[in-house]
């Protein structure tokens, strides 16, 4: 008995003691790759393809960070995390950053000691139901059984929504998207709720996607973005500006096809020059090579390219740009200037 208490304490202490040092960039450079926390499997966002390679919207953005540091989008390893394990994985140093449909909230940014460095997808929580239920609004869901992933903002929003509308529901807590899909398709729950993008992604894998509808209500704001550990601003800067580079590249028409040519000599547009390192020492300010953004765009494309390739209208997931269009095109994607 005494020993088990002792070992228990030891284990907990070990957990807390295994923290990585503050300088993540040095650690990453020393080990030669970036360790990125992603979802366990959400089609279009983070999934492994037939050959076992990770791919998807979040995955590509994580690869962009590897490309910025090492010039190689493949210098990266992925750790699948569930809604529940992701923050512990980041806090304990198991991963260097989190690119996992994670909503930027105040308490996560402060109390959980994370730092959100931007938003890569503006989302909101939605509901998906089988068409056969004949439901057309979330307010008609009184008494329904709802599948939710635990450890998410989803379950908190859901509780608030049903409470505010004075209707009841039966939550079925679930760990991963795959499990939720299985339960939902088996009819063990009437409704699946998560970020609307996740719903669209999940529905695209169904045999008969047309039999399921996503209800019109979007009940929350879910700005999804990358997170790093609190207290390492240098590392946070790199992730933040990698994301900004993807957006700015799209804004100025820099894409994986023309980036080599644009970077070969200074262009007429100074902002493009600063982005691609043909003017100024912007890479060095972050401890990165001069041509870091070139490698990023070359490796994974710009924001628009990533979007179109992984989740855009021409993919099975078929998400429209909507809020995630550039600010110049009616969206709210707006990166600060490279200067």
């Amino acid at each position, binding site marked *: 008995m005494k020993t088990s208490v002792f070992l228990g304490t030891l284990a907990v202490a070990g957990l807390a003691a295994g923290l990585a040092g503050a300088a993540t960039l040095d650690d990453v450079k020393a080990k030669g790759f970036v360790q990125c926390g992603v979802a366990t499997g959400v089609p279009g966002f983070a999934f492994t393809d037939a050959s076992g390679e990770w791919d998807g919207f979040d995955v590509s953005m994580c690869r962009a960070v590897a490309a910025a540091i090492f010039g190689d989008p493949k210098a990266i390893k992925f750790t699948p995390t569930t809604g529940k394990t992701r923050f512990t994985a980041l806090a304990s140093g198991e991963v260097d950053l989190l690119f996992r449909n994670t909503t930027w909230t105040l308490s996560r940014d402060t*109390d959980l000691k994370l730092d959100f460095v931007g938003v890569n997808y503006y989302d909101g929580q939605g509901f998906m139901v089988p068409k056969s239920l004949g439901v057309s609004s979330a307010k008609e869901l009184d008494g329904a059984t709802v599948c939710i992933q*635990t*450890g998410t903002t989803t379950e908190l929003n859901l509780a608030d929504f049903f409470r505010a509308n004075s209707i009841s529901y039966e*939550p*079925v807590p679930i*760990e991963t998207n795959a499990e939720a899909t299985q339960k939902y398709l088996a*009819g063990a729950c009437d409704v699946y709720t998560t970020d609307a993008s996740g719903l669209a992604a999940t529905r695209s894998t169904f045999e008969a996607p047309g039999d399921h509808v996503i209800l019109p209500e979007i009940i929350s704001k879910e700005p999804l973005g990358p997170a790093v550990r609190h207290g390492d601003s240098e590392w946070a800067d790199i992730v933040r500006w990698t994301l900004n580079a993807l957006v700015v590249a799209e804004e100025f028409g820099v894409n994986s096809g023309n980036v080599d040519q644009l970077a070969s000599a200074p262009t007429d547009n100074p902002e493009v020059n600063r982005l691609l390192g043909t003017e100024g020492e912007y890479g060095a300010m972050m401890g990165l090579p001069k041509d870091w953004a070139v490698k990023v765009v070359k490796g994974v494309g710009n924001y628009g390219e990533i979007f179109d390739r992984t989740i855009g209208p021409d993919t099975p997931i078929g998400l429209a740009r909507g809020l995630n269009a550039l600010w110049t095109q009616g969206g709210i994607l707006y990166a600060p200037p490279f200067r």
Partner: protein
Amino acid sequence: MSDTAQPSGPSFRIDMLWNDSRYRSTFIQVVALFLVILAVMYLFQNVVENLAALGKTFGFDFMTQPAGYDINQRLIDYTSRSTHSTAAVVGILNTLMVAVVGCVLATLIGVTAGVARLSKNWVVARLMTVYIEGVRNVPVLIQILLFAAIFDEALPAPSAFRGEDATASMWLGEMVAATNRGFYFPMPVWLEGSFWVVVAFFASILGAVWFGRWANERQQDTGEALPVLPIQAGIVAGGTLLVFLVAGIPIGLDYPALKGFNFQGGLYVRNSYMALTLALALYTGAFIAENVRAGIQAVSKGQTEAAFALGLRPNRTMNLVILPQALRVIIPPLISQYLNLTKNSSLALLVGYMDVTGTLMGITLNQTGKEFETLFLGMAFYLSVSLSVAAIMNLYNEQVKLVERTSAVGMGFSVLDLFAGVTGKWEVLKKGDATMKREYGIRGLLNLFVVFYAVALALMVDYTFLAEITATRPSYFEWSGAKQIATLLMLIALFATLATCLFKNARFIDLAVMDLLAFIFAVAVGWPFGQLVEGVSGAAIVAIGLGARLAIIGYTIFGERPNLTFFHRVRRA
């Protein structure tokens, strides 16, 4: 230990600490203890420092904040606005529900399978072997998932019960619905007058027990045996039924019916609970079956033959000769099986059952980021459950274990010794001793004491963990330190006293004194006894609590008893 610490030689040299066998063991133990304390302190320090490096503080304030999430299965009032501490209690109760039902089921399954495996019927014996070996050798995790998958995939969704062309139908004449969300059973509804049926039920149980004792005595005197069990069953069933009819059938049944998305009404047992409990019970039952078989086989065959020679029928031989002896072998491993089941219930996570690992150590941990605090509380919970179960089972084992005639030993210091001058000397007797009588004298009163301690414990637990959190009754984590400590002390003391009293253990008296001290401490730190029972003032509760405790202790020590007290302490005049 202490008796070897007296230096008896002419001079004491320091090297005698490790060279002299009189001091060596004490010395080593002291050093070891010191090292363990140092290590624990180092680890704790390390944790606090690392948390600080992360910018996190150690504290339980978050437990008083609204949890924000909903829990499907809740045995007490809970909404998403309740605090994290209430969510933790909901989880704890869910864990206990799996543990208690699982242990009962596992015992039933285990005893049946264990006895059946020894059956002379070849088919039955083989079938049990297949069950036991099959289940024991597959990880329980897989079995839980298997049950969950079967329930999810094989049972129909509620919508399949609907409409003209329903593909599924309810069982047992529209009484039970098995869906891929859970099972719905009819639930009793208590109408006016049902109180008296409950009273009648317990009264007839008392009557049946009394009848059993009477029949036993009669058999001792006259040698005539009555069919005790059927008569007892008749008393309970008949008595209850009579009142049930006289009171105008005050207990009805509420049947589940499909309404909206789900069945409504009746008793809803979720599949997550079913899968977890059944899988754990079957798994643990297989181990218990082996314990039972080992216990029975440990009783030598000669005993059976001797019993047969005396003319005992086989089932009487089993009940009167073999099982009482086999139990001694069965109980100790049974304890650890119960503990295993309780700890394995934390696999609930896998099927989304909201036990304490799902609420406190799951969602609360995740939403607040308080890994260390939540895991600490979770560990404390599992530890106290394990220790409590172990304590109860050890006390029971103490009762049934074989006592050899030469093994009577003293039990060290007891409060009784303080009063030896007044009451006469106390001696330890063991069950087998000739002076040990079947009626334990104070035993009947001890059962009354059990009621007192049980009620006191129930009130304390209810107030500390279950009561709704209001302005006048803040969450435990907002109480003052002294009040928190007093609560813990009282809970521990009450539990220990209750357990020893229930099992007529000689330590009862010492624990009753400890409980008295804890109570006095609580009164001294201003524990809010006034809130314990609605409508009863604090002063009254303190007066009753103090009075009853003093009376119990006084009676136990000075009580005018024949010459036997409880269990195996004897007062010599």
